[in-house]
């Protein structure tokens, strides 16, 4: 698709061709994105990258992520920025649905991605057989619904990426397929993904900067909007302050909207300990607590010293108590209290200080934690 849309330039394609030749291989299109020498020699994506496609009135970036288990850190890093998930499943003999296929779906859902396109790939290797496509889709469909995807937001498209079937236009080899080609399906999903405009005011503050008219608190509006003259609550500190001036991109404005980075003048100085605080609508405040129940995807061992990174601050975890296990390949829970790497758990986490928290589905930025244990990346947690 990168080649067909012109997103991969001629020079990139030529370079990938030459490299394939040097390795005595047929042209390997994956080399367009897999640019590290190690990725090419080992025939696998190691780290995430992006490639931009323009189609109709939209520009969207494909975030390529690695599939291998040991590279889950890189997969999550890429996928966390996604708005729509595109999952590739091979129907080639001995490939098919694997544990990691389901694990990636589980992670995508946990990251809050609601729209999903499953591209059932390598249809050319099974003679474009409808039955195999139906079986593969059917098996995934059950799992997808089980882990919380809305079936109406999920599409299945049979393709052959290598031969170009059903990528940019309908393939004559799969007349039995009633849907649209992949690019159209992706376009429609991306088009429908509009940023949340409603919700109560939430500003995550990054800190304080000096200005000609005194200090300004800078931060990003992640929900709602803010107007000059309004009162806002500062959490977890708990005081209420009045906004007397708003700057967006260096210009004075009357109001700031969701998605914007603002610099606020307040009716009093708050000092320099503002990093990670939340400014919220005083009528609809998030809960301030040091006890959170998290759904955790586990990427490393939980050792002696666990840190939760939360909106630019690091908070020590006093305890992490696993309540139950979730099997990421079936969606089933069990009573086991052991946190297995590459698995998921639900756990009660006691933090060393209070923070403003909301359910991940309500305000993502206030419902997510990155966990490090003994200095290593140990998992991601969302407030459920």
């Amino acid at each position, binding site marked *: 698709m990168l080649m067909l849309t012109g997103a991969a330039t001629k020079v*990139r394609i030529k370079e990938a061709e030459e490299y394939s030749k040097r390795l005595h291989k047929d042209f390997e299109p994956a080399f367009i994105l897999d640019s590290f020498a190690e990725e090419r020699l080992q025939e696998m994506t190691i780290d995430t990258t992006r490639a931009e496609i323009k189609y109709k009135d939209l520009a969207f970036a494909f975030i390529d992520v690695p599939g291998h288990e040991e590279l889950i850190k890189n997969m999550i890093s890429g996928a966390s920025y996604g708005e729509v998930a595109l999952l590739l499943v091979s129907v080639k003999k001995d490939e098919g649905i694997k544990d990691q296929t389901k694990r990636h779906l589980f992670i995508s859902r946990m990251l809050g991605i609601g729209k999903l396109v499953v591209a059932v790939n390598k249809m050319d290797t099974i003679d474009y057989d409808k039955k195999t496509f139906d079986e593969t889709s059917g098996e995934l469909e059950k799992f997808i619904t089980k882990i919380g995807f809305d079936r109406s937001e999920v599409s299945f498209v049979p393709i052959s990426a290598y031969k170009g079937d059903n990528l940019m236009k309908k393939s004559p080899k799969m007349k039995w397929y009633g849907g649209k080609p992949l690019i159209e399906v992706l376009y429609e999903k991306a088009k429908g*993904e509009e940023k949340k405009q409603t919700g109560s005011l939430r500003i995550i503050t990054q800190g304080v*900067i000096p200005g000609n008219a005194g200090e300004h608190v800078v931060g*990003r509006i992640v929900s709602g909007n803010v107007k000059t003259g309004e009162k806002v609550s500062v959490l977890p500190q708990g005081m209420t302050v009045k906004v007397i001036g708003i700057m967006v991109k260096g210009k004075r404005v009357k109001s700031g909207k969701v998605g*914007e980075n603002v610099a606020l003048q307040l009716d009093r100085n708050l000092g320099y300990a503002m990093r990670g605080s939340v400014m919220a609508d005083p009528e609809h405040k998030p809960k301030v607590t040091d006890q959170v129940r998290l759904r955790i995807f586990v*990427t490393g061992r939980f050792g002696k010293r666990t840190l939760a990174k939360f909106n630019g601050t690091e908070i020590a975890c006093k305890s992490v108590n696993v309540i139950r296990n979730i099997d990421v390949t079936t969606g089933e829970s069990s009573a086991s209290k052991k946190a297995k790497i590459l698995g998921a758990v639900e756990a009660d986490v006691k933090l060393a200080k209070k923070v403003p928290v909301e359910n991940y589905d309500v305000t993502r930025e206030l419902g997510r934690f990155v966990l490090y244990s003994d200095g290593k990346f140990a998992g991601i947690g969302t407030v459920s």
Partner: protein
Amino acid sequence: MIAQDLKTLEERSIYIIREAKLKFKNIAALWSMGKDSTTMLALTRKAFLGKIPFPVIHIDNSIDFPETYAFREYLAKKWNFKVIVGHSDIKPDSVGSACCGQNKPETLKKIMKEYGFDALIVSIRRDEHAIRSKERYFSPRDKKFRWNYRNQPAELWDDYSSKLDTKGHVRVHPLLDWNELDIWRYVKQERIPINPLYFSRNGFRYRSLGCTHCTVALKSNAQKVDDIIKELEITKQEERSGRSMDKEREYVMQRLRALGYL
């Protein structure tokens, strides 16, 4: 998959630049007087109420174009920021990676040490080069400037790495998501002052700027920002096709970046 437009790109860059300034003790930015790092400075002014609150480093090998030096003086005065000039020596006959790849990092190392910078803003973009496309927004470098690309830190949501295991520094990449056309559209929208070498003279213009030894002008009649945008909307030519170093093989670039090349 993620949709991207100019407003989204701009907001993310402002967020990253503020994050760099507020997270680290002592930061600086690299400025080549090219379009990308000049756009980064314009974004910095938006982030910091019209100011550029950190010094800007120019690694000068004394063979940049006269227009480039003039532009440096002009903009530093107009926008009122501090420029640290680091002089790097070049060998008369060397070109490409043998030249840039060795001399510039050495000079930068000296400056970083002398001033004690713990983070450096660098205006690379993913679409410039296959190896650059693998970068993170915040990318740690060790004491010797090495990039451990085999084991990059997790970078998810808006949590950027700031952990330094060694006495290294963190490279901050606020323009990673932008492409060449985005830059020019933004230059137009914000009326950002630009080095005149980008505009056509006698039928040629520079599309990517390096020093006088390694940069070749490309055929073009684009005399205004609008012309450049029109040209880029239809061109099939690579942005850095006038840069000799990029003609070397991919893995040369990878080796260079791993070793601390900019």
